[in-house]
Structures are given as structure tokens and as C-alpha cells.
């Protein structure tokens, strides 16, 4: 259904948000710039989970594994002197895709709760794998000396420059995801979510489609990992910790599944909520937990659903 009104309430809100994002490094202090860089990296991550969770109906509780693999790829390459983002970032994505291929081949044979449990278990396996990698910092992780270089064109070491690179990456990831979910491939993925049996009877090799979708999501998550390694200049198994996978899941649910933009808003909302709550009390999780429960109980539309309420229904 074509939306003829280009700028409805939702469009205006998003445009406003985009202008604010573009202006952050100009007017914000370094802390705000760094904070919003983190938000945008997590937005890419939440977006990538939405591809498999929202559109594909594959509830993964191990998505942080790909974040960690992307980050470790950048970290390990830096250890061997490879600093170029043009080499390191695509390799981070490739490494995530390769691991996702293996995890996907095994775990996509199942669905539903089994899938939740198995993705969680595999993520935990990788967590322990990196913990036992003593050569690369073991459980403490390892620092990166400097940010990746971008062929001498830009200095990523400057927070503002890095911020805009992350912003552009995020927009590119959003554009790509938008193309994917509205392509024939995206339609098939949606069909599989609604009724896999039927898609199979239509002669579609559903397993291959799901696996491809899983691997694409992992690639984006790996890219987010490469960015986060550059952002904090540190990689550690904590990046793969299963609570992080849970957080990403919450971001997607909070923002509103199957809307691409929603999970990105969810990432922003959750990180801001954490920031605000943690400034109020050391024990902010005691507030965050019940807050999440309320969100889950109150239904599935999320922030994005609230934004679009009244203008049109979706999903």
C-alpha cells in the first residue's frame, strides 16, 4: 500500500530526529557525541536483529555473539598491524557471516523455543571461547591502540568524524534493510514466518531463505561490532555476554518489531533509560527490570506503534 502523504506525523518525527542526530556533534559536548555514537551502533545491532526476529520470526537470544565476533576481528587484525577500516570492517562482517552460517545450519533445523535456547547456548559457547583465548586478553579482553584508519581520507580518531561515519553507516544499514524486506526475498521471509509449511508446498527452499536472512543479520551485527570496537577501543568477552543479547532483544521489542526504525528507536530509548536510571541510583536495574516487564505486558506495538497510532495501522 503506497503511502501518498510523504510527511505524516511519523515522517515528521523521524525527520526531526535525523536533524537532531546530524546536529549532535556540532552543539553537543564530547560526552553526548560519544553517547549518541553508542546509541547509533546499538541501533544498527537492533535493526539487524529485527531482520531475523521481526521479519523472519526467528527469536535469537544469541545475537551479541556476532557483535563480539565483529569486534574481535577488528581487535585481532589491529594486533597484527592491520589498521585499515577498508580491510578490517568487511572482514569483521565476513567473520560474523561465516560463524552465522555454522550456527544457522544447526539451529535453524529447529524453531520457536528450541531456537531461543540454542542460539543462547551457541553464543555462550563463543563467550567461553573468547574467555579462553589467553593470547588475546582472555577474560579481561584487550585494548586497541588507535581507531582504524580510513585510507587517509578521514581521521576516525576525532569523535565528531567517527560520529558521522557511524551515522552514515547506520543510514546505509537502514536503507539496505528496507530494500531487503521489501524485495521478493523479504516477501518470502515474511511468508515463511506466517506459514513455513505453505511456503514449502509452493516449492520454496525455506531453509536456505532463513539461513540467508540469518547470515545477513549477522553481517550487520558484525559491522556493529567493528564499530563498537573502534568506539570504545577495547574488545572483551563482555561484548558477547548473554545479557547483552537479552538487551538487544528488549530493544527490538521495546521499539516495536517488524518496523526497522522501531528497534532503532528502542535502542535509543533503552540506552537513554539506562543512562538516566543509573544517574539516579546505583541499583538502577531494580527499576529497569519492572519497566521492561510493563513494556512486555502492555503489548507488542512498542514505541513505533505509539508513533504511528492513529495515522495508520501496520503489521
Amino acid at each position, binding site marked *: 500500500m503506497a503511502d501518498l502523504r510523504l510527511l505524516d506525523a511519523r515522517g515528521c518525527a523521524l525527520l526531526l530526529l535525523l536533524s537532531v542526530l546530524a546536529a549532535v556533534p556540532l552543539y553537543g559536548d564530547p560526552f553526548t557525541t560519544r553517547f549518541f555514537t553508542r546509541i547509533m551502533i546499538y541501533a544498527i545491532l537492533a535493526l539487524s536483529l529485527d531482520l531475523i526476529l521481526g521479519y523472519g520470526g526467528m527469536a535469537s537470544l544469541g545475537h551479541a555473539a556476532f557483535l563480539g565476533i565483529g569486534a574481535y576481528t577488528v581487535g585481532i587484525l589491529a594486533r597484527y598491524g592491520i589498521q585499515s577500516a577498508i580491510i578490517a570492517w568487511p572482514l569483521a562482517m565476513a567473520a560474523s557471516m561465516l560463524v552465522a552460517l555454522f550456527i544457522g545450519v544447526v539451529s535453524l533445523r*529447529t524453531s520457536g523455543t528450541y531456537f531461543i535456547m540454542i542460539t*543462547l*547456548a*551457541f553464543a555462550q559457547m563463543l563467550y567461553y*571461547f573468547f574467555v579462553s*583465548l589467553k593470547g588475546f586478553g582472555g577474560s579481561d579482553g584487550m585494548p586497541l591502540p588507535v581507531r582504524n584508519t580510513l585510507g587517509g581520507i578521514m581521521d576516525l580518531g576525532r569523535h565528531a568524524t567517527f560520529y558521522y561515519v557511524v551515522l552514515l553507516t547506520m543510514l546505509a544499514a537502514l536503507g539496505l534493510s528496507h530494500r531487503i524486506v521489501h524485495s521478493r526475498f523479504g516477501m518470502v521471509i515474511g511468508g515463511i514466518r506466517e506459514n513455513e509449511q505453505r511456503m514449502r508446498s509452493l516449492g520454496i527452499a525455506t531453509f536456505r531463505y532463513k539461513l540467508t536472512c540469518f547470515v545477513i543479520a549477522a553481517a550487520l551485527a558484525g559491522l556493529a561490532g567493528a564499530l563498537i570496537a573502534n568506539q570504545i577501543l577495547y574488545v572483551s568477552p563482555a561484548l558477547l555476554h548473554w*545479557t547483552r543479547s*537479552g538487551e538487544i532483544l528488549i530493544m527490538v521489542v521495546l521499539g516495536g518489531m517488524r518496523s526497522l526504525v522501531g528497534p532503532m528507536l528502542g535502542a535509543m530509548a533503552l540506552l537513554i533509560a539506562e543512562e538516566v536510571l543509573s544517574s539516579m541510583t546505583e541499583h538502577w536495574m531494580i527499576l529497569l527490570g519492572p519497566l*521492561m516487564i510493563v513494556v*512486555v505486558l502492555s503489548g507488542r506495538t512498542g514505541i513505533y506503534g505509539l508513533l504511528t497510532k492513529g495515522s495508520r495501522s501496520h503489521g
Partner: protein
Amino acid sequence: MDLVLLFVQGLNGLQFGVMLFLMAAGMTLVFGVMDLLNLAHGSLYMLGAYLAATLQVHTGSFPIALALAVPATVLIGMALEATLLCRLYDRDHLDHATMTFALILFFNELVRIIWGPQARFMGLPDQLSGHVEILPGVTYPVYRLLIIGVGLLVAGFLYWLIMRTRLGMLIRAGASNREMVNALGVNIKLLYTLLFGLGAALAGLAGMMAGPILSIEAGMGEPILILTLVVIVIGGIGSVRGAFLASLLVGVADTFGRVLLPPALASMVIYILMAAVLFWRPQGLFPSHG
């Protein structure tokens, strides 16, 4: 000597296995019958450990602490089920995962507030803290033997409960066809609460028994929770028999992996085992239905 080492490691694996079984049995029952994925099962384990440690400090008696900690955990579990988790039954598994994940964050912070951030340790009474000679010249901690004994006893009790009692009959019926049990006029709500209480009891018991051999701290429930999920996946969801055999398999595989293999590989052994099982039998080794 090598044979003796193997034997002792086998006992360690068995001890680890029965601990996993206590967790997995409750979780797989709740999952198989109630179709509820409760990630906060590990929180009940943690609460069991904390309650036992606190009661031991206050009463000065190990047995009294043990006797009170389990019912207390059961009460917490049943209250949780009756107030919050019962709202999830008509939701899908994603909501189960997110809500119980939020509960984990809540409980971890709650114990940090109540008991502080430092890890606690639980002492053992003298009779249980020693070693006993199990083979000529080979000694083994009494307490670990006790854990094995209790675990096997609980396994026997569960077998009796599920195969020989009316409640067990309803549990089995519920595992194979929930709607039918409901339609036949069984008070399914009460059955669910009871079953969840049973799961909480087993988790609390496991946590309490882990108290003296592990450090008691916030988040202690998560590593065992994830291993429990592995056990359930290997054993087949909803199957207590599957959970029992898979627990022992995982316990022994993990223990021997740590002795025989390099660390990077050892930490991955049971996950590789899980992947292999899934590859050949996606429904687990002993699926209870379907």
C-alpha cells in the same frame, strides 16, 4: 593410578550431572506441561542459595537452613507464577524470554541490594566437610557424595511422582495434550501453580546444595541456567527421563573435557555435543511428545 583418576573424575561428573538434573527436571516439566520458557529458573536457584546461607547464619544450624530454604523458594516461585508469569500463557515464547529476562535483572539487583555485592560462602557442618575412603587409598569429599545421593533420590522420587501418582498422571497428560486436560475439567491453573512450585523446589534445592561448593553471588544462576538449557535441548523438551540422561551425559562430558582437552576446546565440549545431537536428532534424544 590413571584408572583411579578416571573414577574420581567420573564421580565429579556424576555430581555435576545430578545438580544439572535438579535444574533441568523442573524447567523441562514447566516447559513441557505449561509451555512456559522460564529463564528466571536460575534466579530461583540463586535465591535458594542465598536463603540457605542466610538462614544458616541466623539459626546456626545447617539442617534447619536446608529445611526452611526450599519451602521459602517454593513460596517465592508460586507467588511469581500466580502474579506475573500466569499472564504469559497466552503469549508467545518471545514474550516469555523477554519478561523472564527482565525478571533475572530484577532478582540479580535485588540480592545485591539485600545481601550486598560481595560473594558469600556457606560453611559445612563437621560431619559433612571431611573426606571418606571410597576405594582403598582413594578419598572423596563426603558432601559431594551426599549431593549425588540426594540427586539420585530426587530422580527416584520424580519417577514415582510422575509415573505412579494421580498428579503425575495429570502432568503426563498435560505434557501430551494441554487443551484436552483443560477440557476434561482439571483445574489447570492450580496444576500449573503446583507444577511451578515443584520446579522452584528443585531449583531451590540445587542452589542450596551448590551453596557450600560455589560462591554465592548475584548472577550465579545464569551459568547453570544456560547449561540447563543445553541439557533440555539434548534430552528433549518436556522429558524428565531425557533430562536425567542428558544431565549425566553433559556432567560427565564437561568434567572429562576439562581434564583431557586444552582449555579453549574444553569449554566448548558440551555445546559441540549439543550441536551434534541437534544435527542428527533435532527433537532431542528422548522427546516426550510430537
